[in-house]
């Protein structure tokens, strides 16, 4: 039978630009859409140097009353927690709320001191659930050795909040000789990560039950300020610290590469991922580099101190799985590249919007 082939029409582009005039879920994913939203809607009217620096926490100065005393440097941060479900393997919204802000402060090299906690509670929530969350916050605060010194409570009608939203803000003090921020990475620096990637994101996805899989993966949610203290005590060459939360390692490294105007080259074989997390990502078509973490940090360190920092990290509770995963260079400024497991090189981009399980 002769097969008749159709005349091909040539290029037909399906579509004009999709303008998002309204907020969609992708704006909250921590990736490019979030950054664009911040740049277009929030930053212009609110701009000031501390905000514009774009780090995990703002660094501000308070001038003391005594004129010949150096100004006090503080780190200030705020974080809202809307995770669903409230409880998941390894953690809950309360622990997340405390650790999230403690970690943001610690990433500036600050000693976290005081937190506030604001609660938006949906009508109908069991008080026992609220008590459980608060108990968890107390335990996390104790572990981090911070105090929650102010709070607020609002109740909204059923349907107006997903059971419970928590906002935490925090203040920490920064020693005069510490200058850690996203613009400090330098060519020659070594990139270290404190442990396995992607565990939190997968644990939460599993707890949601929508994709129907079961694992023994636990969220890694943890306060990292003691780990930061440990490495600060052995090195003055720590240039950048960041905790790769929404958007994962890939997004955080891209932010740093852009802020510091350097290139970062990663070694795929060195990046630690728990085998079960890796398997879950395979099944869903996710890349662990983009999955959220809540108890891990990236440290970008001068080359001479990389080994002592690594050793110091590995000696702490939350840094046992630390590994060197790459280095900073002057080629491809603003770009993150990865040497793949088979020896090729590819770009590691920021997360675009929402990460979706794929069939392709």
């Amino acid at each position, binding site marked *: 039978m002769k097969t008749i082939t159709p005349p091909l029409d040539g290029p037909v582009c399906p579509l004009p630009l999709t303008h998002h005039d309204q907020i969609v879920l992708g704006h909250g994913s921590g990736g490019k859409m979030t950054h664009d939203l911040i740049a277009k809607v929030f930053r212009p009217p609110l701009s000031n140097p501390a905000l514009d620096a774009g780090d995990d926490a703002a660094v501000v100065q308070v001038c003391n009353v005594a004129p010949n005393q150096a100004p006090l440097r503080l780190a200030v941060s705020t974080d809202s927690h809307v995770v669903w479900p409230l409880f998941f393997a390894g953690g809950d919204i309360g622990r997340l709320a405390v650790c999230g802000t403690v970690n943001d402060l610690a990433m500036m090299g600050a000693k976290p001191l005081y937190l506030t906690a604001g609660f938006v509670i949906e009508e109908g929530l069991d008080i026992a659930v609220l008590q459980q969350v608060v108990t968890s916050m107390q335990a996390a605060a104790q572990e981090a050795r911070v105090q929650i010194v102010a709070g607020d409570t609002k109740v909204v009608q059923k349907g107006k909040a997903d059971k419970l939203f928590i906002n935490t803000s925090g203040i920490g003090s920064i020693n005069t000789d510490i200058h850690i921020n996203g613009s400090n990475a330098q060519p020659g620096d070594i990139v270290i990560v404190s442990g396995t990637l992607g565990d939190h994101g997968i644990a939460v996805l599993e707890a949601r039950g929508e994709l*129907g*899989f*079961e694992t*023994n*993966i636990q969220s890694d949610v943890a306060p990292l300020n003691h780990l930061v203290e440990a490495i600060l005590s052995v090195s003055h060459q720590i240039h950048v610290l960041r905790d790769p939360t929404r958007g994962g390692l890939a997004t955080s490294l891209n932010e740093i590469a852009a802020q510091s105007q350097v290139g970062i080259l990663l070694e795929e074989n060195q990046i630690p991922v728990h085998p*079960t997390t890796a*398997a*879950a990502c395979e*099944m869903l078509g996710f890349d662990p580099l983009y999955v959220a973490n809540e108890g891990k940090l990236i440290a970008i360190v001068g080359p001479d101190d990389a080994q002592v920092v690594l050793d110091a990290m590995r000696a702490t509770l939350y840094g046992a799985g630390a590994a060197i995963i790459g280095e900073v260079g002057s080629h491809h400024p603003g770009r993150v590249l990865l040497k793949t497991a088979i020896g090729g090189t590819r770009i590691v981009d920021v997360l675009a919007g929402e990460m979706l399980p794929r069939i392709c």
Partner: protein
Amino acid sequence: MCLGIPGKIIEIYQINNMQMGKIDFGGVVREVCLEYVPDAKLGDYALIHVGFALNILSEHEAQETLDLLKQVSMSEEPVDDIFG
């Protein structure tokens, strides 16, 4: 077009007269439909795509292929008659 990965069949049962099972992908367990692999046995590896087992993986063929590729990657001369 076809994100499919192999997983080990660890349970087989019936739901709504459909052959179903639990698959273990390296520590991740999920329920899948086994209607398309009626000869599946516990311990078999199957290709899973969108919650369905599409074929049983032949361990024998897998090993043969890997052995052949190991030969290819070790040899210095062109290997002309691989794969028959």
